[in-house]
């Protein structure tokens, strides 16, 4: 549980999709002109990331990883399908986005009207595929992957909404002509990234098991009894 909270806070603030990895930058810059559209796309990203990351986790752990196919037969233990991860991940994302679009259109036309135009855009949003591609490098459990997906989505939402708010205010500023639009937006994003860098020094609210273990060992270094035990352990 504590670990989940850690991953959640980390994926929103410290490893923010935009400010730490620059994922989903194209749509980030394209939709952040107005606060309302930005919030719409942000919601859609939270939703899609929250569902496709666990889906891709399943695909990776039961299909693609080396030895992942052992649930079918023991003979498949040496099969490594990781080469196919790009195609599988993007197919899952694109198919899911298409399905959601159709479902939303059928069951809730009002939601479709407010969100609909953004859904197809999301299939090519780097943050969705990027989040999935982080999975093989990080050893998440299923629930952790779900938390990571939701947290990253919320981080993206926060980033896009705050940039949109700044850009709306900027309409009243007198920016040098060639810097208008994209140029000044980049500089603002840079400044916001500085702000988010300060979260890097954040002490996470809860420590995971390894960190707790490490701290226990540190404090127990002083007592001789534990020292002897650990020495005995080492000699074994």
């Amino acid at each position, binding site marked *: 549980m504590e670990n989940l909270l850690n991953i959640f806070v980390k994926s929103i603030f410290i490893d923010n999709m935009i400010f730490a990895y620059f994922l989903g930058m194209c749509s980030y810059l394209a939709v952040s002109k107005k606060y309302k559209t930005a919030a719409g796309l942000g919601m859609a990203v939270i939703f899609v990331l929250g569902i496709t990351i666990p889906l891709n986790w399943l695909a990776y752990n039961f299909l693609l990883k080396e030895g992942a196919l052992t649930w079918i037969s023991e003979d498949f233990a040496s099969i490594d399908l990781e080469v196919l991860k790009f195609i599988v991940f993007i197919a899952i994302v694109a198919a899911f986005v298409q399905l959601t679009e159709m479902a939303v259109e059928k069951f809730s036309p009002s939601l479709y009207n407010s969100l609909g135009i953004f859904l197809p855009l999301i299939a090519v949003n780097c943050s969705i595929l990027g989040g999935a591609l982080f999975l093989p490098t990080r050893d998440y459990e299923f629930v952790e992957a779900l938390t990571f997906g939701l947290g990253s989505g919320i981080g993206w939402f926060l980033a896009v909404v705050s940039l949109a708010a700044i850009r709306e205010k900027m309409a009243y500023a007198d920016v040098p002509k060639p810097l208008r639009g994209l140029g000044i937006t980049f500089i603002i994003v*840079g400044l916001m990234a500085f702000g988010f860098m300060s979260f890097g020094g954040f002490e996470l609210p809860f420590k995971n098991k390894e960190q707790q273990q490490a701290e226990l060992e540190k404090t127990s270094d002083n007592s001789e009894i534990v020292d002897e035990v650990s020495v005995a352990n080492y000699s074994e």
Partner: protein
Amino acid sequence: MSTETLEKDVKEVKKTSEPLLSKKRRTLLTNPLDEDNPITIQVLGICSALAVTVALKPTLVMAIAVTAVLVLANVVISALRNTIPNRIRIIVQLVVVASLVAIVDQVLKAYSYDVWKELSVFIGLIITNCIVMGRLEAFALGNKPWDAMLDGLGNSFGYAWIILAIAFFRELTGSGKLFGVKVLPYEYIGNGVMMSPAGACILLGILIWVIRSRNGYVED
């Protein structure tokens, strides 16, 4: 397709054929370098432009990878353009691009493992690189393969020179090196800001400022 229609098609192609590098086609190649640049004007492919440009070497590899994928994808989609149903074209494009990226990924992993490791997820993210999807949508779906190839080359060169320029400044000021070789005096202390994502954003903002004040492009 029957032979009759085939012959008709061939005739039509012959009728409208123009020199391989006519004036119009040359602009396909040169326009994206400056006044129609994918990064500074069309605002495409920003993610990788900022993320991989910490040093020149991975940037060069990334530029080559994007060039290969963009040119091949443009040609393939342009060749298939009359057979792709409109409704599922995005998925078809994604599958074509994803297969090409998987090949590039394997080649890099085999021949330059260090750079492959450094680029990590960003090779895979060429799939969703907006330059690739954008050019497929805007150009390859409506033009012949040869034109699409020129357009792909032009846009990837436009992308390449921008990210190489950013990487040049970032590596030079960030660590005093170029291609990993120390060029500034030994006492130079690297500027950590330039190595961070935030520095890249500000640098790109300034670069866009310079380019746009040169070619006079103004956003409203």
